[in-house]
């Protein structure tokens, strides 16, 4: 591996911040899930994501970044590298469910590509998280197919309209970084466009099963990867960091 640490840090912050922010968003359903079984499953998935974020911030710390708690809670909004999809409020369950599918499918493909990364700590983590992410996608996939293809007219219409709403946001996951060539050449990561290609292929197969259509003329919601966020991120950060900021030296 021969590359700058900046390229690696940028990649890690994207994945870590995505995991942290989606974890926080999904955890907002705790206690409000449609039935208790789903409440537990969805909360548990959110907790898994929080664990992924911690593992990634730990890798960043080993590269000289602050300790995980400081990296997670003490940066300014413009320093976060998450995509817009993760920031959006939970909306109704249809929105959260389709977001969960689009996001987790992208995560699954990304980690699969990273399993062979020349940056061994990340490759090792990718292999370790495989089972958890497989479950997350299985969960999302089961629900979307059931509600869209084997539900009622209303549930199908809701799946389609949530997909229409989420899709441009999801394309923002793949916003190219300024290090694409460097990351690919060094064998660390195949790149956002390869990720998007594989993601789209797998999404198309799921949507065919679910009998819903992927929107064709969507403008990707870019900016998140360079610190330009929607109006939804700052309120989330205020809430998420409220307790931590009261006493940053406290030992939890």
């Amino acid at each position, binding site marked *: 591996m021969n590359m700058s640490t900046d390229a690696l840090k940028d990649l890690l912050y994207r994945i870590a911040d995505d995991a942290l922010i989606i974890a926080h968003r999904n955890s907002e359903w705790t206690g409000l899930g449609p039935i208790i079984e789903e409440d*537990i*499953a969805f909360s548990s998935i959110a907790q898994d994501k929080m664990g992924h974020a911690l593992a990634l911030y730990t890798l960043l710390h080993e590269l000289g970044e602050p300790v995980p708690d400081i990296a997670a809670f003490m940066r300014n909004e413009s320093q976060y590298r998450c995509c817009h999809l993760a920031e959006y409020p939970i909306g109704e369950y249809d929105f959260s469910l389709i977001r969960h599918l689009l996001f987790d499918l992208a995560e699954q493909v990304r980690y699969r590509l990273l399993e062979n990364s020349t940056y061994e700590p990340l490759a090792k983590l990718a292999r370790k998280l495989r089972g958890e992410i497989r479950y997350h996608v299985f969960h999302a996939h089961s629900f979307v197919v059931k509600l869209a293809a084997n539900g009622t007219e209303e549930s199908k219409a809701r799946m389609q309209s949530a997909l229409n709403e989420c899709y441009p946001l999801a394309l923002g996951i793949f916003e190219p970084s300024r290090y694409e060539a460097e990351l690919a050449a060094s064998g660390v990561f195949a790149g956002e466009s390869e990720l998007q290609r594989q993601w789209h292929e797998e999404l198309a197969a799921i949507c065919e099963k679910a009998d819903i259509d992927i929107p064709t003329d969507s403008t990707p919601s870019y900016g998140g990867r360079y610190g330009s966020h929607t109006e939804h991120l700052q309120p989330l950060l205020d809430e998420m960091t409220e307790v931590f900021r009261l006493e940053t030296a406290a030992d939890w």
Partner: protein
Amino acid sequence: MQHIISLDPRVTREHIPAEFDTLLTPKGELDQLQSYEVFQQGKSGGRYTHVGSVRASTPEIALVFAKEIYGRRGPTFGLWVVQTDNIHPLAPADIDVFETASSADKDYREVVAYARVRDKIETFKKSEQSA
């Protein structure tokens, strides 16, 4: 043949008085989740143990729920879900069929009768010695 309606306490704990029946309109098929019993295999090659129940619309979704609710606290090597309707219990009224096995004059039919055989042998040996 008897059926278990559900082993889910949310379903079974409330005994709704008969006079309220008219207030309950039956749900449409898609609004009514099925009850599933969950069996988990905690050891590789080990037996499956009943661990609880979930309510879900399909067996696949029942497995999605069961994995997270019953499989996340310890090692799991296998998981089954079985629709509760497919379990055929012995009727509570027939439970007296076990009475003969547990009657006092037939304790040789029970495992517990053999649990303290060694003690009995020791006691016997001592009584032989002191005799």
